[in-house]
């Protein structure tokens, strides 16, 4: 069998050769590319988190824990959007319903909108506040929209997503049902 000798020569007892200095040298640009990829990962991660916190569409979502107090101070009903990451109709509602300028304007003018994200499938259970809200409004399907008075009383509930028109009708009817501020 042919043997290829390199400097330093292979150790006869192992039959292996060590990587040659210049041949095995890593180009410095490789490190620069990895560093750039790390920076990109951090930037996109932070941007993604900000976007997730802001919520989907044109609706100005308020954090779920602040929704009730904001509703009391503004004397407006709360609109809870019970949603889940795995739920396809929820994504349709996000991209179609909450992206609609008319619907978003109606929500922003009349409600304190808050998203309630179910994490049972991913994490095995939900956080206490999410579980409390789901129990209080008997949420068993996603998406479910709940309109509640500032003191937490249920005004209207809408399960599933059947298109923008049906969503608009629900939001207008619920606004009429809500006690006048």
């Amino acid at each position, binding site marked *: 069998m042919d043997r290829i000798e390199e400097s330093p020569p292979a150790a006869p007892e192992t039959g292996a050769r060590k990587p040659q200095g*210049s041949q095995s*040298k890593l180009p410095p640009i490789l490190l620069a590319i990895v560093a750039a990829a790390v920076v990109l*990962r*951090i930037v*996109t991660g932070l*941007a993604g988190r900000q976007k997730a916190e802001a919520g989907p569409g044109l609706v100005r979502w308020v954090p779920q824990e602040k929704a009730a107090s904001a509703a009391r101070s503004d004397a407006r009903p709360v609109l809870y959007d019970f949603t889940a990451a795995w739920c396809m109709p929820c994504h349709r509602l996000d991209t179609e319903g909450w992206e609609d300028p008319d619907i978003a304007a109606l929500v922003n003018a009349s409600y304190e909108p808050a998203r309630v994200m179910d994490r049972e499938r991913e*994490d095995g*259970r939900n956080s206490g506040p999410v579980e409390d809200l789901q129990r209080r409004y008997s949420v068993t399907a996603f998406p479910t929209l709940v309109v509640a008075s500032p003191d937490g009383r249920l005004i209207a509930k809408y399960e599933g997503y059947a298109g923008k028109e049906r969503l608009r009708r629900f939001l207008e009817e619920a606004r009429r049902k809500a006690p006048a501020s």
Partner: protein
Amino acid sequence: MTEMVRRLLRQKLGSIGIVIALSLLGLLTVFQIIAGGGEGTLESGGFLALLILAAGSVSRDSSSGALQMILARPIRRVEYLYGRYCGILIAYTLYVVTIGVLALVLSPLLRSMLGVTVALSAAGLARGVVAAFLSAALLAAVLLFFSTFLRGYGDVLAYFLWTLLLGLPDALARPLGTTWLSRFGSLARENLLPRVSWGDVLRGQDVFSGAVGAYVLAVTGYLALAALVFSRREFSYGQD
């Protein structure tokens, strides 16, 4: 590096068994696309083809002794390694482009035979080709990394074990009721084997999403690790 690319193409596409397997897979994918699978079928249908093209890309050269012959010449190890990677991607691109063109050409004829009413769009297929290429870039990087230190087709086996391992925390978290384990599993999966919805990205949605950032880091990370391992490895003479 060009020589390394040419060498891999000769090695893979010069084998009659590989050409037959790729042809059969390709025809099956063409039928699936025309039968209504759409552009996404290219990405999923190309998975097996990529495994065939990328399997044992370094380890086979190493065990046959060819690698030692190549490295006897004044060529950097990184050049050899990334030449193999480019070769895999070029071969795969040729494969998916051929499938895309075939689907487009055969679509009018086969649609009437299969009773399909939905027409194929050239733009949709072009998006499918790009999406398939981008997904392949990650998988090929993972296989290349494993191939630098595993023998034979151990890289393919390692890839499947790697996906199982990354799914394990999630599977254990539910019966154990541990939230942190599930979060850890998701974090590991999202960063080590990220899945990007390329269809959406290529339509201009979520271009700078966390998933895209994780994908770029994963591809560069696997390639850099492969280079690091490969440059430190000692090769024996035909003993593998």
